[in-house]
């Protein structure tokens, strides 16, 4: 029990705040605790959460990725052409194609980071620009609506009609999200590869001396991020039924904020699936609550921003680890290693 408390301070605090928020919201709004609202909450955040667990792995390994949302858009476009070439494709091909494309893009990042000792923030900002620029250039910003029907048809994994006749349902993306979260959890918490990723993020030089294959760890972290980006891209199309080149750009920073809010440490070695889920849900429920309380949608972002600002200010004040205050320098210093 003590281990739970000491190991997951951030997560437990966040959980407490989240529970308090849920209690308040369910008192203030009768809609909050309805099946319809809760399922919508999950449906709307499935894609973010898929990205979030991918980003979590990268953050634990001590890196950062800015390019994943753009990578997801690239995957969507290329996938459209692949499905065309495959004669339409199906869900199986969908996952394989999008997954492979995503992994490929992730491995480009990993290769540049590892081979040329460039820190991840520089590489992913560069690839962000390169991916996005090339995507917009080759597509000329065209939307694609003419998509294979299997891809855009709604698939419900859960349907329920409440007494008052309103329907609530969970769509496929929630199932995929659950699978992604579970798989990520298994990898980082239950396998030796996960241990090595934590170790590499925590003390890369120490990990290297212990015999950890650093190139492989970078590849796993960024490859997994790529895989998640690809799958998220696939599911995003299923939700919105269109492919828009600049629809996802800009969401990377929101996801990053949510994941870090959930206790993942910029600089590596720390972070958990639980925290990641809580971080994403915290932002989602704040937004949902504001919506239910009738606050103007234009004010959402403002309130979320200030909540995060307050959260990080206070959490650092009370949990202050004086030795960890060295900002970006410490966070990314150790990424560029001698071989």
């Amino acid at each position, binding site marked *: 029990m*003590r*281990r739970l408390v*000491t*190991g997951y301070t951030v997560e437990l605090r966040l959980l407490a705040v989240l529970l308090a928020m849920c209690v308040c919201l369910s008192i203030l709004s009768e809609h909050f605790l309805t099946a319809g609202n809760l399922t919508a909450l999950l449906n709307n955040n499935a894609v973010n959460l898929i990205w979030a667990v991918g980003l979590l792995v990268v953050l634990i390994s001590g890196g950062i990725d800015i390019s994943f949302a753009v990578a997801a858009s690239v995957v969507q476009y290329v996938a459209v052409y692949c499905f065309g070439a495959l004669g339409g494709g199906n869900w199986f091909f969908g996952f394989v194609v999008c997954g492979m494309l995503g992994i490929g893009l992730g491995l480009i990042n990993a290769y540049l980071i590892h081979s040329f000792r460039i820190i991840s923030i520089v590489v992913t900002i560069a690839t962000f620009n390169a991916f996005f620029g090339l995507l917009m250039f080759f597509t000329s910003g065209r939307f694609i609506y003419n998509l294979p029907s299997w891809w855009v048809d709604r698939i419900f994994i859960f349907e329920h009609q409440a007494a008052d006749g309103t329907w609530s349902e969970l769509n496929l993306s929630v199932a995929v999200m659950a699978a992604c979260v579970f798989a990520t959890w298994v990898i980082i918490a*239950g*396998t*030796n*590869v996960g*241990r*090595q990723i*934590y*170790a590499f993020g*925590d*003390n890369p*030089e*120490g*990990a290297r*001396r*212990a*015999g*950890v*294959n650093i190139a*492989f760890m970078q590849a796993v972290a960024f490859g997994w991020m790529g895989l998640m980006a690809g799958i998220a891209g696939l599911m995003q199309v299923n939700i919105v039924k269109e492919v828009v080149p600049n629809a996802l750009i800009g969401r990377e920073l929101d996801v990053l904020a949510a994941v870090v809010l959930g206790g993942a*440490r910029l600089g590596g*070695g*720390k972070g958990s699936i639980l925290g990641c889920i809580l971080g994403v849900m915290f932002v989602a429920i704040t937004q949902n609550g504001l919506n239910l309380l009738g606050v103007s949608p234009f004010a959402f972002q403002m309130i979320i921003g200030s909540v995060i600002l307050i959260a990080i200010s206070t959490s650092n004040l009370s949990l202050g*680890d004086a*030795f960890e205050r060295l900002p970006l320098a410490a966070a990314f210093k150790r990424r560029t290693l001698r071989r």
Partner: protein
Amino acid sequence: MTASAAGEAPESESGVSGWALMLRNVNKAFEGVQALEDVSFSVRIGEIHCLAGENGCGKSTLIKIVTGVYSPDSGTEIEVFGERHASITPAQARTLGISVIWQDLALFPHMTVAENIAFDESVGLIPKFFSQGSSYRRAEKALNRLRVDLDLSASLNSLPIAKRQIVAIARALHANAKLIFMDEPTSSLTQSETDNLLRIVKTLSTEGVSVVFVSHRLAEVIEISSRLTVLRNGRLVGVYDTSDMTQTRLGSLMTGQELVSEVSARDCSGNPPVLEIEGLSRSGEYSDVSLKVRSGEIVGVIGLIGAGRTELAHSLIGMTAPDSGSLRLNGRRISPRSVRDAISAGIAYVSEDRLTLGLIQQQSISANVVITVLSKILGLMGLISPKRQGSLVSKWIDELAIQIGHPDHAVSTLSGGNQQRVVLAKWLTTSPRLLILDSPTVGVDVGARAGIFRIARKLADEGIAILLISDEVHEVHYNSDRVLHMRNGRIVWEHDPASASLSQLEARVYA
């Protein structure tokens, strides 16, 4: 198995048989530079051995050959537990049970104790599931072998260095190490922690695990090990029994020079006091400290780490505020609230941690020298004048005879001794009246240490009051005018090097 090698000391311990490691004619050249030349080195099973030598003598090259990081040049013979090898790969070294605990420990600060100890079983490319529970049990077993009780689920960064070291040893044991190299294991330990470490190492030795200490701290080298090998400039100086070794002799073996230690104490009681501390207390750190440092006087403060000596210094330079008591500098009452306050009052502090606190390693020598006195190098419109900066820097480089390439080079390119001189320069630019030297010789070669103390004596002669904080009894005894012994946050004893002997002080401090 043959038991004789060049320079071997006679077999004296009973019950020890066989060799854990035997190296003969080790040669290693790096692109023409001979790092090791015909070095022989051997360790008995269950022996505590010491590998001594100054920085750059080839100690670390030797370890890297044994652990497979480097492969030796031809002619080298390696025998590990009776098996011959031409060279060793890192993986081989691990399976042979050779393990190194580096000075930085190479542990993982955000993992728990158990995860750290059991980490090595996770290494590998083949994915496999791992069970938290069983790795906890194995970690516990390793700790039990050391007869140490540690909270397995504590996060490593919540532990003091000494306990982290124990974690590192347990980790080596967990990886079935039979020959453990410890690189500068005690450089940041207090005496009692060192004693505890020694106890653990002895436990290991009775279990048949050999331990090689790699160190350049003289006292402990003699105290801990049964035999020692001295290297100098890549060559073997000799293998000695520690029973008849003295610090002075070891020092001269390591440096190749006769080191003379003379008590330099003099009577300064007639000089005006510079620093007067009256009943200074800060809860949990030090209490009721009263002391006086006179102009031209070097006052040593000896105490184990945790005795409150560095904490006292932190209050003098304004990093922390004392709860009660008074501070006077040159008769004027001061209460520094920040390092800048302390600097303007005339206090300078040479930190014990040169690597992370004393200097900004990546930045230039020039910037590090002027960092404390920016207001003195301003020119036109209150902007920094490069000319003034340059002349100030070159003045101090000459004054302290610092060996540098160019003032614009990074400080990290300098040797430990020269870095320490840059720290001194940085503080002397502030024209301090009180200079606090906190463990000034940590990481400085034996040969270069005397130079640091020569500078300190010269500064004292110029009228600066010096507070010399250290945990090396030897150092304060020979280099201060008076020695104050601090224990549990209080000053408990005053020692006069001129009239009392070193061993008297040692007896008190280590009692």
